[in-house]
């Protein structure tokens, strides 16, 4: 009899910090103790709290262990599973509220309390490699309902009424896309495709859904196929996501074995099957026409629209393409209904959104909140605020296509339209928090560097324009900027936005425009005062030693790779700024914090 379930997170974050070794050690220890028939270990998808990984939950108690090491396993088995005493030192406590005991449920902690898990509902709950667990959570019920009780037009109407918008970044109404593709049902070959080519640096929500709940995507694609009259599907997934690829392969195989993919699904005359195609790391392939060109085996270059994919897509046939997170919402909408879905969110943005919370924030990880939640709630309550007593400076959403939200707009409710209005965009859901140590000019440069590298080269405004933007930013960062450069940046940005062929170029200048809009003074400081206020841009700063704090321990002088530091023992040292290469090795080594940048 199984009396205890141990759920170990097998998402990418936790496996990177060794959760697979913990699973191994746990299984070995259970066998050694003869508990293998009483305690069951399940490897799940992402729990969300990646900062504290590897994490595990023990049920039925619901004890949440964080930062577990393989060495801790024997103690957990001995104390908790045999003697019934949770290992206190590993139990997750919220930093701010020490007296919250492990007995309170996890959903009451600040990290989970304001979250509403729809797309992530099964992540960290079920074993993603076991279709029975998905079915036990009402999996494939929505597909059954659609096939046996609803007409294709009913399905499209339901998705239209739900107000669901594309979660990949554009925010286009999903139901409308399906409607456009539904013409000539049964007369022409059609495809359903899933965009799992998550390329936004710092976003990992699609990966986590595929790793934690792959069947939800497969089920939704079958529903879409039924709605538009397609019989073949492709999931375009990044080859760099080995765990997600593996779980998708397992899930597709199981679905076929259960007759949930293949011919005559649920005993109807509906046929549908899915193939995987592997993306090879090109950001532009997140753009729909580029993605389809890539599935066809070519350089992933976009083409002008119209014709839209709903008319002429993959291999020239009508195609519906949605993102992973969009699909993950669909079975729930079918089962729980439009009213349930529209009860969440704002007027024009319904439902929830998953964000990958990263950067200078305590609880890095994956969060899902109703649309309309304010940035402050996400950063301060769910995210646990900024570590090391630093101040919130800005949050960046939308990755290389988005912009930043400064501190005075922190109370903005997050939805598609609000973010556009303040010069950013939802994007796929990367949310990177920055503190006072982040230089906004350098950040704009970082994103431009990315888009220059990722521009496919097909159209001139993007290929040449982004390169010129980058050069101007480089000039400013090197301390050679002039005030006219700011006007040049703006002018060029507007040209690139209006003249580029695809979404990549049309949004590439956003990081520049948005930092110029909210942090113009920082640009001016770089240009006029030749200073980087955040102390990031190396050409503009100098390392110095505070003679009052320096104890003359000589450590920095020994660490310096270019012998730029001199001084005698027990006397304050000095840095020769003409020799200094600004590597920062001295500052890292100083035990007295005597070295500073300015």
């Amino acid at each position: 009899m199984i009396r205890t379930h141990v759920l170990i997170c097998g998402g990418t974050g936790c496996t990177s910090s060794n959760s697979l070794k913990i699973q191994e050690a746990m299984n070995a220890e259970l066998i050694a103790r003869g508990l293998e028939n009483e305690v069951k270990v399940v490897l799940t998808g992402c729990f969300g709290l990646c900062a504290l990984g590897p994490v595990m939950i023990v049920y039925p108690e619901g004890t949440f262990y964080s930062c577990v090491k393989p060495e801790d396993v024997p103690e957990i088995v001995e104390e908790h599973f045999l003697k019934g005493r949770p290992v206190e030192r590993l139990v997750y406590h919220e930093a701010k509220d020490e007296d919250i005991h492990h007995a309170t449920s996890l959903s009451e902690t600040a990290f989970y309390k304001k979250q509403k898990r729809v797309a992530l509902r099964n992540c960290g709950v079920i074993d993603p490699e076991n279709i029975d667990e998905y079915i036990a959570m009402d999996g494939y019920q929505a597909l059954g309902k659609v096939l046996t009780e609803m007409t294709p037009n009913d399905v499209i109407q339901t998705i239209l009424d739900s107000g669901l918008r594309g979660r990949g970044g554009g925010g286009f109404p999903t139901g409308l896309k399906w409607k456009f593709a539904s013409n000539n049902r049964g007369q022409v070959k059609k495809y359903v495709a899933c965009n799992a080519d998550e390329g936004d640096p710092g976003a990992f929500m699609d990966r986590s859904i595929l790793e934690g709940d792959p069947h939800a995507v497969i089920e939704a694609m079958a529903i879409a196929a039924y709605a538009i009259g397609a019989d073949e599907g492709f999931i375009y997934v990044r080859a760099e996501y080995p765990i997600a690829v593996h779980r998708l392969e397992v899930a597709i195989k199981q679905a076929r074995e259960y007759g949930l993919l293949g011919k005559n699904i649920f005993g109807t005359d509906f046929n549908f099957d899915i193939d995987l195609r592997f993306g090879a790391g090109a950001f532009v392939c997140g753009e729909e026409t580029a993605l389809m060109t890539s599935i066809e085996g070519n350089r992933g270059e976009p083409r002008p629209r119209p014709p839209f994919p709903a008319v002429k897509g993959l291999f020239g046939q009508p195609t519906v393409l949605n993102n992973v997170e969009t699909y993950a919402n669909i079975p729930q909408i079918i089962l729980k209904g439009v009213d349930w879905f529209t009860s969440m969110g704002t007027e024009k943005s319904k439902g929830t959104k998953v964000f990958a919370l990263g950067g200078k924030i305590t609880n890095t990880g994956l969060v899902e909140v109703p649309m309309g939640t304010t940035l402050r709630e996400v950063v301060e309550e769910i995210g646990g605020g900024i570590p090391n007593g630093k101040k919130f400076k800005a949050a960046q959403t939308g990755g290389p296509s988005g912009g930043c939200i400064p501190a005075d707009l922190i109370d903005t409710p997050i939805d598609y339209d609000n973010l556009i209005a303040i010069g950013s965009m939802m994007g796929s859901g990367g949310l990177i928090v920055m503190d006072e140590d982040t230089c906004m000019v350098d950040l704009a440069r970082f994103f431009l560097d990315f888009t220059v590298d990722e521009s496919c080269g097909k159209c001139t405004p993007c290929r040449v324009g982004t390169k010129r933007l980058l050069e101007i930013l480089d000039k400013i960062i090197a301390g050679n900027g002039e005030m006219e450069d700011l006007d040049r940046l703006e002018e060029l940005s507007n040209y690139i936005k209006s003249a580029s062929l695809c979404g990549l170029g049309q949004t590439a200048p956003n990081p520049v425009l948005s930092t110029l809009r909210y942090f113009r003074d920082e640009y001016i400081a770089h240009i006029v005062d030749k200073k980087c206020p955040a102390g990031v841009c190396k050409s503009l700063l100098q390392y110095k030693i505070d003679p009052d704090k320096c104890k003359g321990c000589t450590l920095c002088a020994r660490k310096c790779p270019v012998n730029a530091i001199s001084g005698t023992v027990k006397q304050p040292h000095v840095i020769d700024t003409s020799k200094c290469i600004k590597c920062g090795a001295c500052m890292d080594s100083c035990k007295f914090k005597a070295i500073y940048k300015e």
Partner: protein
Amino acid sequence: MKKNLTTVMFRGTKAQEEQLIAVIEKYRGTKGALMPVLQEAQEIYGYLPIEVQKIIATRMGISLEEVYGVSTFYSQFVLNPKGEVAIAVCLGTACYVKGSGDLLDKITQVLGLPAGSTTPDGKYSLEATRCIGACGLAPVLTVNNEVYGKLGVGDIEGILAKYK
């Protein structure tokens, strides 16, 4: 994306070539076969030297330009062999704002190896990667797929010393 061409000599074997030919045959007739063929070729050889791309072009009956066009378009395809010690520093946004750029500079400085290249003896390779999804551990780097997280510049020499 811009790619550095390799300086390391091609050491492909007959057995590898046979494997490659089998892969090409497997995909004969499949729509959009070039990408999967290149992906499997890279698994066989570890990278895609021009010699391998020539075999693919000839056998698939397409021009070398087309093959080269695709192989240089996607960042996953590498034209340089990975070193015995393959180091990759994540330059995703979450890692970047936490200082992964400094980690990369430090490694370049210690090994004298610019990002995107391999030492001529094939010992070390260094690349700047896109987000690897371990943002909770930012900044991260991987050495031969072993993940090191929450790093500072001061940790670099210790990590490299393990692989001397």
